[in-house]
């Protein structure tokens, strides 16, 4: 029997669609790749070339690569936004990437040198007026230089002004000059950024910079970089700064020049995690709670869901459908909003939970109650999912086995513990493992409810008593105060990944997930 007829129009349509899609992909690549190269992001340029090439080969070859036609788009996206970030995180874990160590060495050194201008020792302030070149409109400093006389300075250099073309007041400040428009202080204030950035080149490598709106000073570069020895020397004092192991220029006396740069520091972040007492202690607590949280959430929600599934699974039970529909509402409700509603319900003074039961429990502010509050909220949020999958598994139980058991005289309890539970567990184990892995990184559950708090004592003001690894990592990476430490955060991320991956791989290999591979 013919169950399928080839519709030729759809083939032509498909071809047109394919040509249009491939055309826009190639067009996009042709547009983006030069831009990426111009911005020195060579890695991404290489990726775009590679991806376009792969797609062209896969979709324009006739018979080969059929599976790749379906997989390539997904895998290419996965490479850029999952695989590459993961590998990059692994790399950052071995670097000192953090606030003050964001840029590369070359940029850092040139910034240090550029920032090293210092005023000449005994120089008195030079009378100055802010003006604009009447012809070009360029910002200009009109300076009355000692022993030299009035000069106009812009970013290019100094131009002497004829004495009869300027008017000066008693202090030597120029009040009018031919060819220049003097700015009022309001006008000058509007040019603050340009004024601060303006360095007028003077004699012997010195520069003139504005102090304020009426005076300038002469500055000279105080630091010099020597590429051959890879050191920075202080021109006046002669002190030398050498690169240290932390990606900074450091003198023998221990002075450090800012900014530093990003560099590979080997296992230092890892050894810090293990050896530093201030870090290790909270980390152990965080780790302990991460495990407890994930395991408790999965077990409590699973058993609540299973119990509900069993209770509602009776042929004569009326309103079963209505019950089920109402029970899954927490699963359908947007989780972030629900968590925020719970925060309101948990409030110690105004929250409905304390008011309803006439108690005064510090739900979100005491270390232990906060843990309980999180678990209760997760029980609410997670049970419906477990209820759904448990119901599915219970309904799929082979009825012959159950009947045989009751014929053989097994008590309902025995049927449950010896047959139903093991079978349901067996069926659901891949989902339970996935749920466990998910909860290991269930950031929202913690962050929205308690923000990881209340703060743990002796934790450097960072780790809270409900922090799990991922929320702690987030704080490390983006915390204010001491600045962000991406290197250390990536190290913790990396350890978290190893932990979750090995647990789930173990779980999956013990369960039947791998059968899906066939």
């Amino acid at each position, binding site marked *: 029997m013919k169950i399928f007829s*080839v519709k030729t129009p759809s083939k032509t349509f498909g071809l047109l669609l394919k040509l249009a899609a491939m055309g826009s992909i190639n067009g996009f690549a042709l547009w983006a790749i030069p831009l*990426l190269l111009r911005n020195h992001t060579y890695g991404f340029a290489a990726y775009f070339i590679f991806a376009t090439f792969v797609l062209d080969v896969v979709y324009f070859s006739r018979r080969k690569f059929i599976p790749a036609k379906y997989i390539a788009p997904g*895998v290419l996206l996965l490479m850029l*936004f999952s695989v590459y970030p993961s590998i990059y995180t692994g790399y950052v874990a071995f670097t000192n990437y953090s606030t003050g160590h964001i840029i590369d060495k070359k940029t850092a050194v040139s910034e240090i040198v550029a920032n090293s201008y210092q005023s000449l020792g005994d120089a008195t302030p030079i009378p100055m007026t802010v003006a604009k070149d009447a012809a070009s409109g360029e910002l200009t400093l009109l300076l009355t230089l000692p022993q030299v006389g009035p000069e106009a300075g812009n970013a290019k250099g100094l131009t002497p002004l004829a004495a009869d073309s300027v008017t000066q007041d008693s202090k030597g400040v120029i009040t009018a000059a031919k060819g220049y428009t003097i700015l009022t202080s309001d006008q000058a204030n509007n040019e603050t950024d340009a004024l601060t950035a303006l360095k007028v080149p003077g004699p012997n490598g010195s520069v003139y910079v504005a102090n304020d709106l009426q005076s300038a000073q002469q500055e000279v570069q105080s630091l010099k970089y020597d590429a051959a020895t890879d050191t920075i020397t202080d021109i006046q004092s002669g002190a030398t700064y050498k690169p240290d192991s932390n990606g900074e220029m450091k003198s023998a006396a221990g002075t450090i020049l800012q900014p530093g740069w990003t560099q590979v520091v080997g296992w230092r972040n890892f050894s810090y995690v293990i050896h530093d007492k201030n870090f290790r202690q909270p980390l152990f607590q965080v780790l302990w709670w991460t495990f407890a949280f994930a395991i408790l959430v999965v077990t409590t929600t699973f058993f609540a869901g299973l119990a509900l599934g069993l209770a509602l699974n009776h042929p004569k039970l009326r309103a079963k459908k209505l019950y089920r529909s109402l029970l899954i509402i927490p699963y359908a409700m947007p989780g*972030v909003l629900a968590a925020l509603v719970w925060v309101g319900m948990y409030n110690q003074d105004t929250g409905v939970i304390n008011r309803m039961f006439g108690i005064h429990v510090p739900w979100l502010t005491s270390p232990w109650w906060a843990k309980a509050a999180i678990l209760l909220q997760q029980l609410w949020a997670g049970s419906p999912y477990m209820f759904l999958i448990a119901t599915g598994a219970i309904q799929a139980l082979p009825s012959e086995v159950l009947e045989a058991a009751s014929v053989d005289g097994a008590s309902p309890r025995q049927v449950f513990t010896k047959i139903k539970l093991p079978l349901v567990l067996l069926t659901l184990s891949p989902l339970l493992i996935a749920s466990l892995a998910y909860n290991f990184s269930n950031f929202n559950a913690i962050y929205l409810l308690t923000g990881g708090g209340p703060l743990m004592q002796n934790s450097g003001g960072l780790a809270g008593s409900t922090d799990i690894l991922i929320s702690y990592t987030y704080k490390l990476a983006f915390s204010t105060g001491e600045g962000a430490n991406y290197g250390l955060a990536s190290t913790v991320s990396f350890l978290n*990944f190893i932990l979750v991956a090995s647990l789930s791989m173990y779980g999956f290999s013990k369960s039947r997930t791998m059968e*899906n591979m066939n």
Partner: protein
Amino acid sequence: MTTLAVDPQPKAAKKEKKAKKDKVALQKHKPMSARTWLRTLAWRHAVAIFAISFALFPFLWMASAAFNNDNDVSNQQLIPPHPGFNNFQILFSNPNYPYTSWIKNSVIIASVTSFLQLAVAASAAYALSRFRYKGRKTTLMTILVVQMFPQLLAIASIYLILADLGKSIPFMHIGNISALIVVFVGGSLGVNCWMLKGFFDTVPQELDESAKIDGASHAQIYFQIILPLVRPVLAVIFLLSFIGAMNEYVLTSIIIGNGNQSHLTVAVGMQGFISSAYQKNWGPFAAGSLMASVPVIALFMFLQRYVVTGLTAGSTKG
């Protein structure tokens, strides 16, 4: 071979269900004594009602706050003494917190994301389910392992990637909705693909074979046979991805959260809104949350039957 409708449940289970139904029909003739009812069913109703009150309470509390004109957290009651729509008015008239834009952004982000996620994952799942080629197991393994490294852990790297890409490609810049969508799509292949593959495996291979004999191409088999057969599952995965994207907080707040208020999503915007002044914003917050929740819940109810099968896919089979 006349019917093409594939029920995700195995045939045996279906028969069994029918047998059960017949049994129930038979038993209906004998009315249950009050004592049996108490012993077998009463406690089930009690459990269900207790669980439902627990499940519904936060939702009802939110709804009650939304319609409570007093907007008073500390004296709020389940039935508002002065019901009305004040909170909704306040919510829509606050220019500092543009709720309408949030909803619009959320819906755009969530629907585009879930559509693309579904398209990418379904086609990959089709290849993994139907073709046998070198490197297939490696692909499956890779997807499984990569999925264990949540994007959340690599958040700093993702930020840096976007900062670099955004220099050249404007729509990939941080602060841009399309950047967020691409990141979401790029990170989601794992879960959905694995789930869908389980479903595609339940569609009998014979269908493909006979279509092939009739001259169908692989694309036609995919678009005209397999996809229509698993349409309910596609709907469920779309729904779950939609909820997931609506709910995403961290990546969203890092990628688009630092700029203009009108570029936020409901999740990030509402978090900022309620955190800024808890007591004062409680009522309007509840109103906004209610409006954001109800359509999702309704859609979920509507697709409920498929959700169960969707969730247990790949684990209950065989």
